[in-house]
């Protein structure tokens, strides 16, 4: 079977080209912008085109034998230095194709939604240019044929998140949030780069000048020494914690809510945060050989999930709640891939992308209806005004809480069950608790926003359903959030685990079997915990919610356990002080000295040479003869 195709490049290229065209148009016409319809039409071309190509790739891959199911395209040799040979190439296998499917699909839906949400905004063209760029970078990240190409996309999404989070540049807080996201991501990127460097260092003799891509790395991975392999895994995971917002680098994600709501949806559902999971799954052949690294990943994941779920229970801002839920769900995913249940983790990424996009876009609709009001304590009773939004939000919340038969149930339970089956019962236990918390805070949100009495009558009166361009994507996503789980119906429900089977060739996974009884009991238990959470939320918030100041532990939770303040006091401030010292004292007095000295020397020499340009033709002739004479002396030696 021929593995080389020439249309892979179209997938990232179409959104990138869209970004370029939109960006140029915006720059050329920023004074008197073109009609919004034109921008939106152009913006849609890229994502939809990518979606079509993704479908083509999917069907091509399906026809290939499972064991050699991949497509590649090499565009050109990017660079080649010593043994390091990097091709600018793309690589599509079942894993990346699954990512492509939901990235392009959900990305397109969010694009459509944005047309409505951003209508009438300033910098409409710039927004869509960034959006397309974001999607294009994510697609490069997913499709890159090796860690170096992946890194282009990795940095690209980081850049775009910065640009989009601080999109409303007039507000200084937004810019600071963008800076925070960028800087925290850079910390993670350092880990990633170091990991790739160590990986290459460990492999360069095994590669022997062959291309530094996944196929060759996988083939040579067995030659890594144990220490090197472990170091690579841990360093790469640092990168993943940055991009996928895990402890201790999760702090940027809640602040990233500063951007327009569709941006949050895109970051949380389709791009950026899934990158870390993708990367760990991509290197599953490494993580599988180092159980310790896997344990670290799993524990960091599940603890992040717990922490974020607790914080989520006490937030007031509708988008922050969703943000912490994302952090929490990402923790689940890492727990999944950490216990070597890669397909379960990936499947949760897949389902999560549907219901999280749904929740964000639904929240966006609410915010849009209430003219940018984000505090859930100022909402209430919106069920009557926005029935459609209510329905889809409930579906999203049920899916998030993991209530059967919605999408989240199957994927989350798969992770929990796999943790149990592999003997990580502590992780399983925490996971179940987190499930209860998740149910609690998601329904807290639903009840406070849609039920009860309106707490702010004025904005309640103005509320209305958004236009169809926004509701249609919501409906499509709601359908997805309801049924996406059935793609991977486990054997327990006499399903055939379609997604896991599809992913099998890309992942190195050992399936462990546990008895049907255990599986059943675990499932019932988690459903029960979820129901408990929903019930508690109903009891507390459905009829007569009280917005009283929080105290004690709850206050801690509301203030996010002071992690940001901790970072500020112990990392940011000392760092700033250190920087001040350097710039005020060390830089001008010590570092600049040789620079200034050289500058001075050159200035003096320059003046001297000016004198030599005396302007007399005879003097110039004399220079020539002096040169001639010196060279003659030199040449006479060799005669």
């Amino acid at each position, binding site marked *: 079977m021929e593995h080389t195709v020439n249309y892979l490049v179209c997938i990232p290229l179409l959104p990138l080209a869209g970004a370029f065209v939109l960006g140029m148009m915006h720059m050329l016409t920023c004074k008197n912008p073109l009609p919004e319809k034109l921008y939106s039409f152009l913006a849609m071309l890229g994502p939809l085109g990518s979606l079509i190509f993704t479908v083509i790739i999917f069907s091509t891959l399906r026809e290939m034998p499972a064991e050699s199911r991949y497509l590649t395209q090499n565009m*050109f040799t990017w660079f080649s230095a010593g043994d390091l040979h990097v091709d600018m190439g793309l690589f599509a296998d079942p894993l990346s194709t699954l990512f492509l499917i939901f990235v392009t699909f959900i990305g397109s839906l969010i694009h459509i939604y944005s047309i409505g949400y951003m209508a009438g905004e300033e910098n409409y063209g710039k927004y869509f240019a960034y959006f397309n760029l974001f999607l294009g970078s994510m697609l490069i990240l997913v499709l890159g044929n090796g860690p170096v190409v992946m890194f282009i996309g990795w940095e690209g999404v980081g850049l775009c998140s910065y640009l989009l989070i601080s999109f409303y540049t007039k507000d200084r807080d937004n810019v600071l949030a963008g800076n925070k996201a960028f800087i925290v991501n850079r910390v993670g990127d350092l880990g990633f780069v170091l990991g790739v460097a160590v990986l290459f260092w460990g492999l360069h003799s095994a590669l022997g000048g062959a291309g530094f891509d996944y196929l060759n790395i996988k083939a040579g991975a067995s030659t890594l020494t144990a220490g090197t392999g472990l170091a690579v895994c841990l360093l790469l995971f640092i990168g993943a914690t940055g991009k996928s917002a895990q402890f201790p680098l999760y702090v940027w994600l809640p602040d990233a809510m500063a951007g327009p709501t569709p941006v949050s949806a895109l970051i949380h559902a389709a791009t950026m945060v899934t990158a870390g999971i993708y990367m760990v799954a991509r290197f599953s052949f490494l993580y599988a050989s180092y159980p310790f690294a896997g344990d670290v990943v799993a524990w960091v994941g599940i603890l992040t999930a717990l922490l974020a779920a607790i914080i989520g229970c006490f937030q007031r801002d509708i988008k922050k709640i969703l943000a912490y839920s994302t952090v929490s769900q990402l923790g689940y995913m890492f727990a999944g891939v950490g216990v070597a249940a890669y397909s379960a983790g990936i499947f949760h990424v897949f389902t999560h992308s549907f219901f999280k996009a749904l929740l964000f876009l639904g929240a966006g609709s609410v915010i849009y209806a209430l003219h940018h009001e984000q505090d859930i304590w100022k909402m209430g009773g919106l069920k009557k005004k926005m029935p459609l939004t209510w329905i889809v939000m409930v579906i999203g919340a049920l899916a998030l809480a993991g209530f059967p038969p919605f999408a989240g149930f199957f994927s989350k339970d798969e992770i929990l069950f796999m943790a149990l089956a592999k003997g990580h019962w502590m992780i399983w236990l925490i996971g179940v608790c987190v499930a209860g918390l998740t149910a609690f805070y998601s329904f807290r949100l639903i009840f406070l926003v849609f039920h009860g009495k309106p707490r702010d009558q004025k904005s309640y009166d103005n509320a209305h359903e958004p236009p169809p361009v926004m509701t249609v994507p919501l409906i499509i996503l709601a359908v997805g959030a309801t049924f996406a789980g059935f793609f991977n119906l486990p054997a327990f429900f006499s399903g055939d685990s379609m997604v896991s089977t599809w992913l099998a060739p890309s992942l190195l996974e050992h399936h462990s079997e546990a008895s049907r009884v255990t599986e059943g009991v675990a499932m019932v238990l988690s459903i029960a915990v979820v129901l408990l959470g929903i019930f508690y939320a109903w009891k507390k918030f459905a009829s007569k919610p009280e917005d009283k100041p929080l105290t004690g532990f709850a206050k801690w939770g509301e203030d996010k356990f002071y992690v940001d303040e901790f970072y500020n006091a112990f990392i940011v401030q000392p760092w700033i002080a250190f920087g001040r010292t350097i710039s005020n004292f060390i830089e001008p007095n010590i570092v600049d000295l040789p620079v200034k000295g050289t500058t001075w020397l*050159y*200035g003096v*020499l*320059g*003046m*001297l*040479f*000016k004198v*030599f*340009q005396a*302007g007399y*033709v005879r*003097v*110039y*002739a004399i*220079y*020539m003869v*002096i*040169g*001639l004479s010196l*060279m003659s002396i*030199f*040449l006479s030696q*060799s*005669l």
Partner: protein
Amino acid sequence: MHDLVSFLPLVITCTGALLLMLYAVCPKAEQEKASLMSMGFFAVAFFAQLLVVCTVSRPLFPETFNGMLGVSGFTNAACLIVYACGFFTTLSSHTYFRENHFATVEFYSLLLFSAVGMVLLSMARELITAFIALEIMSLAIYVLVGFNRASSRSTEAIFKYLILGAFSGAFFCMGTAMIYGAAGSTRFDSIAEWLAFNPATTPLMLGGAFFLLITIFFKISAFPFHAWVLDVYDGSSNPITGFMATALKTAVFAMIANFLALSGNLHDSWITGLFWIAVFTMFGGNLIAIGQDNVKRMIAASGIVHSGYLLIALVAINSEYFSGAVIAYYLAAYSVATLGMFAALSWLGGEGEKRVTFDDFKGLAKRQPLAAATIAVFLLSMAGIPPTAGFMGKFYIITSAISAGQIALGVLGIISSIISMWYYLRLIVSMYFHDAEEDFIVDGSSLASISTVALAVAVFAIGLFPLVL
């Protein structure tokens, strides 16, 4: 037949020169028309040259011309650069002479004549043919430099250039005589044959090559034969300065590269000498440029530095597989930036070239953002900032030096290019970070402005060109 096609662009240019010369006699002759005609001739010659670009390396009319002219891929590239330079110089001149009224039809005739000389020089496969071509080129350029008879600066420039040029030309003659004495012939193929059996350090061959190189060093303004270049560039009109800095250098480099590449023996014997000349040229040029306040003099001095880089490439050429691609690429990159710079100066310089110093361009970015941006592009390309053509050119030169084992030279080249930022950035700072003191009222619809923009695009196009390959 093939020979005739290879010869076609030269014939076109030559015809153009002669026609314009005759047109000059016509009582109703107008210089504006003449400039359009010469533009046409250069354009046609350029496209004719594009047609012949693919011809393989061979002597032209070997029976009739006795192998004295030849074409190769490198020669073709050099000719392309010369024609393009001529074309853009004509565009700049057209604008320049709207505010400076001293042009006549002969100006364009001489421009075409000098291009003929340059093309012949790059095609020459025989020393005395090369000498005559060099003189055609030089004499035409001398006259163009001194074209403004009313200006004492211009007269001084032609005087200095002519005296020193003729002085250095005498060395070429003496060198040719010595090589003739050694090898019994002045044809490149015979010299190569002779060198196959005799060492290049035979006294007569060594001395002959030495004197030839002296002339070449003078023409490309290598240290210590550089002193004339600032005064002459300063004194001549903007378009001509651009033409001199680019086309002339291209042709001379084509000739000397062809000569040095004729035998590995000969090239090897000059590596050490060229090494030192390259180093002194780069650093001497930088030091001179640092002290300059006048943009034209600064560009002239930076031209010395660029000659240094090209000498690095000359050190690194491989005689067995000589394609000259690196040299041709760098020349193209350098020419585009320099021509663009002088096109912009022709456009912005104003009447009697009143804007010449760094301070005169203060705040240009506020009044003429497009012009400032294009000038910044050219300066950045000259400084070798990616993704401009200048960066790629320098990159190739330094990699070729390193792959030829001249690591020290490569490192020195990088250091020199860092130093050169000093004076390039100074102009950018002056344009962008100062308030405007005047309005820079210029005719924005002129041909020079179009050519400036076209060249700025070309800076990037040439920079990306190797990626396309």
